[in-house]
């Protein structure tokens, strides 16, 4: 079996295994303001709603079209979210932003005072009602002021010979991710990042071979956690563009992980944005012919107050408390730990193997007379596990190695556990008291285990959770 084929099988195995575990844990909804005929995509959070782009028909008389396919060109629109399910009226953004040509995916700084957005480089030229195919995409920025959008500027790395588009600004405003088909990439469209230094954007840097492929990588979204979501038609995509994410570990992007069905499908799925808690978000898909925006919410519960799991420690030091310094000790102590083990010494250490109620006894041997005084003192030592959810698994595994994890050693008082929820830190989640998992990339992962209690008489459930790190090593570097 060829290496390539084998690798593919592993990936298919991982994906299929995970899908069956929690495919039903997402609810997706096609948002009501989508049109049937036109495209809506590339949402970005803005104030009380979103901004997105669409090629919907906005004018009765004139709408500019793409000379390649005759479609209307894209503009940016805004829509407010009234309630969890209700959305307001879609409004086109100001003509300070929208032009007669394409305006596309946008991003904001965290105070929403500055917008970076995609637009044709030659937006000021009126060339009839169609767009010249040589009019490449570029990134532009504009200030959101009380008096409207101002100070629209072209990004310094726009170029009339290639496209620079799909900006996504990091939470600290210092990194601008974007997609480009500039020369020197890995093929197709690649993802790049520019770092701001002393107020100036540095040169674009390709995100590298872990992220970029010979295919297209587009629609980056940098989450405030540092996780980078994007779309690609490679990386084992199950159908055209799929949504993936990656994170930097030790300065290196690790192998992108595909999001699960039903977010990804065999259609184009792209343009994902997600909230700070990674609980809900929006993405785009053409699964209903035209591009539409969908909301998604994960049914996987969130455990807000997780703490780092502490390892159970059953090791103790024993000593005689009342020792008077002036004494000329000529005594030996023999400690009977009550678990079948004994030790001699003025101070001794002992690790119990299990929990239990132990009676520790002190026998004293008088070295002068040779007399042995049994059971001179006793100490009842109840040894219990720390009251916490407990993740039982290896701390270090290899890529591709099946790791078993369980929560059997969880010790919670007055807490009748009904459900166990696992988050492996690589985007995979599942349920159950004992599970297995395979990591596909090296790195340090945070594994979380949350538990729910059974409902009490009032229908309330309690929840608790812990996390711990697992180091996944590359087989080659072992």
């Amino acid at each position, binding site marked *: 079996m060829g290496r390539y084929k084998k690798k593919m099988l592993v990936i298919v195995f991982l994906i299929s295994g995970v899908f069956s575990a929690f495919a039903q844990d997402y609810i997706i909804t096609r948002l009501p303001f989508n049109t049937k005929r036109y495209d809506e995509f590339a949402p970005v959070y803005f104030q009380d709603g979103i901004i997105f782009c669409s090629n919907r028909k906005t004018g009765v008389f004139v709408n500019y079209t793409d000379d390649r396919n005759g479609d209307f060109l894209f503009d940016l629109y805004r829509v407010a979210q009234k309630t969890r399910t209700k959305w307001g009226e879609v409004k086109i953004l100001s003509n300070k932003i929208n032009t007669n040509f394409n305006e596309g995916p946008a991003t904001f700084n965290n105070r929403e005072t500055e917008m970076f957005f995609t637009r044709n480089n030659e937006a000021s030229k009126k060339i009839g009602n169609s767009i010249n195919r040589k009019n490449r995409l570029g990134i532009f920025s504009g200030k959101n002021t009380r008096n409207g959008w101002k100070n629209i500027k072209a990004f310094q790395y726009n170029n009339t010979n290639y496209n620079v588009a799909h900006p996504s600004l990091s939470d600290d405003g210092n990194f601008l991710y974007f997609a480009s088909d500039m020369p020197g990439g890995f093929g197709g469209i690649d993802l790049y990042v520019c770092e701001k230094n002393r107020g100036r954007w540095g040169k674009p840097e390709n995100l590298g071979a872990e992220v970029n492929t010979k295919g297209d990588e587009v629609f980056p979204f940098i989450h405030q956690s540092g996780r980078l979501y994007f779309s690609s038609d490679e990386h084992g995509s199950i159908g055209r563009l799929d949504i993936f994410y990656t994170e930097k570990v030790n300065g290196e992007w690790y192998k992108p992980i595909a999001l699960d069905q039903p977010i990804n499908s065999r259609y184009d799925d792209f343009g994902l944005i997600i909230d700070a808690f990674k609980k809900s978000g929006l993405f785009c898909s053409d699964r209903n012919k035209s591009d539409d925006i969908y909301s998604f919410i994960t049914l996987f519960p969130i455990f807000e107050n997780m703490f780092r799991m502490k390892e159970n420690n059953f090791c103790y030091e024993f*000593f005689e408390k*009342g020792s008077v310094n002036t004494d000329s*000790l*000529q005594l030996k102590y023999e400690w009977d730990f009550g678990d079948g083990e004994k030790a001699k010494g003025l101070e001794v250490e002992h690790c119990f193997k299990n929990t239990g109620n132990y009676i520790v006894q002190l026998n004293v041997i008088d070295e002068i007379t040779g007399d042995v005084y049994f059971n001179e003192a006793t*100490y009842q*030592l109840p040894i219990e596990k720390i009251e916490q959810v407990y993740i039982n698994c290896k701390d270090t595994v290899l890529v591709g190695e099946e790791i078993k994890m369980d929560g059997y050693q969880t010790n919670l008082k007055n807490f009748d556990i009904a459900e166990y929820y696992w988050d492996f830190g690589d985007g995979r989640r599942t349920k159950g008291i004992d599970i297995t998992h395979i990591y596909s990339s090296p790195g340090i992962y945070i594994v979380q285990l949350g538990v729910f209690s059974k409902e009490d008489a009032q229908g309330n459930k309690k929840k608790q959770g812990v996390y711990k790190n697992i180091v996944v090593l590359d087989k080659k570097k072992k």
Partner: protein
Amino acid sequence: MIKKFYIITILILIIITSSIAQPVPAEDENIPYLMTFGKLAETSWGDDDFSQTFFFVIPEEHKIPIFIRVYDPDVGGKIDEINGVFDTRVTYSVYGGNECYTNKDAQSTDPIGNYKSGNLLATKSFGVNPRYDDNWYTFGPFNPTEGEYVKKFGGYIFKIIAEGVSGDDGNMYRYFLSTSQNSNNRIEGANAFAYEYSFRMHNDPNEVSHIYPYVDDKTISVEEKNFDWDSDGMIRVVSVARKGLICKISGDDKWGSYKFKILDEEMNSSLDFQFIKKRYPQVKNNNVVISVKNQYGDLLPFYVVPIGGVPKYKYSIGVRKKN
């Protein structure tokens, strides 16, 4: 008020803890014999002053006559220590009445001044006398009220002095405070004590002898004095708060002393002075003398039945969790 409480506490302690008196030495002391030499003996034989005083406490509730019995009172035979030929006489004198205890000279380590205070109730001298060798002689009967009533003890005190009036041999003997003339019947609630203990050590190095000086709540420090220990092993002090303090011991015909501070937990309790013999070279027929004073120079009484019971260090296990 505090003083009153203290006295009451003492009374209660004596009554509670001395219910099984009164062989002297008592079982818990594990001392083979009391020892008094004839006054012509060299002190290097172990007796510093050829005189030993003991006090018996009879609780005031005890109404019937008492007897003071002496085991092996004579100076001869197999128990006593011969120096040349047995030519020693020892006189035992029993005192009661006023000042038999409360006279200051009676509570001294040295037989000087009016140490024979009180009313002489009975006296008897013994030399070589096979009839009383390895046998009992009984003083009494005495009416308990013939003793001196001392309120702080809650009873009547009798005093017995053994003195080596002639010769140079060593007299080994014991006492028993009894309700019977012919047998050893204990008196409930009675006790016996001395301020200086002259006794014979065991020959067996495995045997550990004890005395139990009582520490009151005014005691801050004590000084132990021992005589003619012949460097035989060690004196170890154990208490409710002390696991084992090693004191200096004396050599042949010499005095040794050792001072130490009293711990808070030791107040109103007895100390356990353990006399632990060395194993090599073994010392036999070792006669020794010991007394203990507080920081004021007042002697601490050695009760044959220790007040508060035999003091025992209370071991306590401390536990620390390892990180």
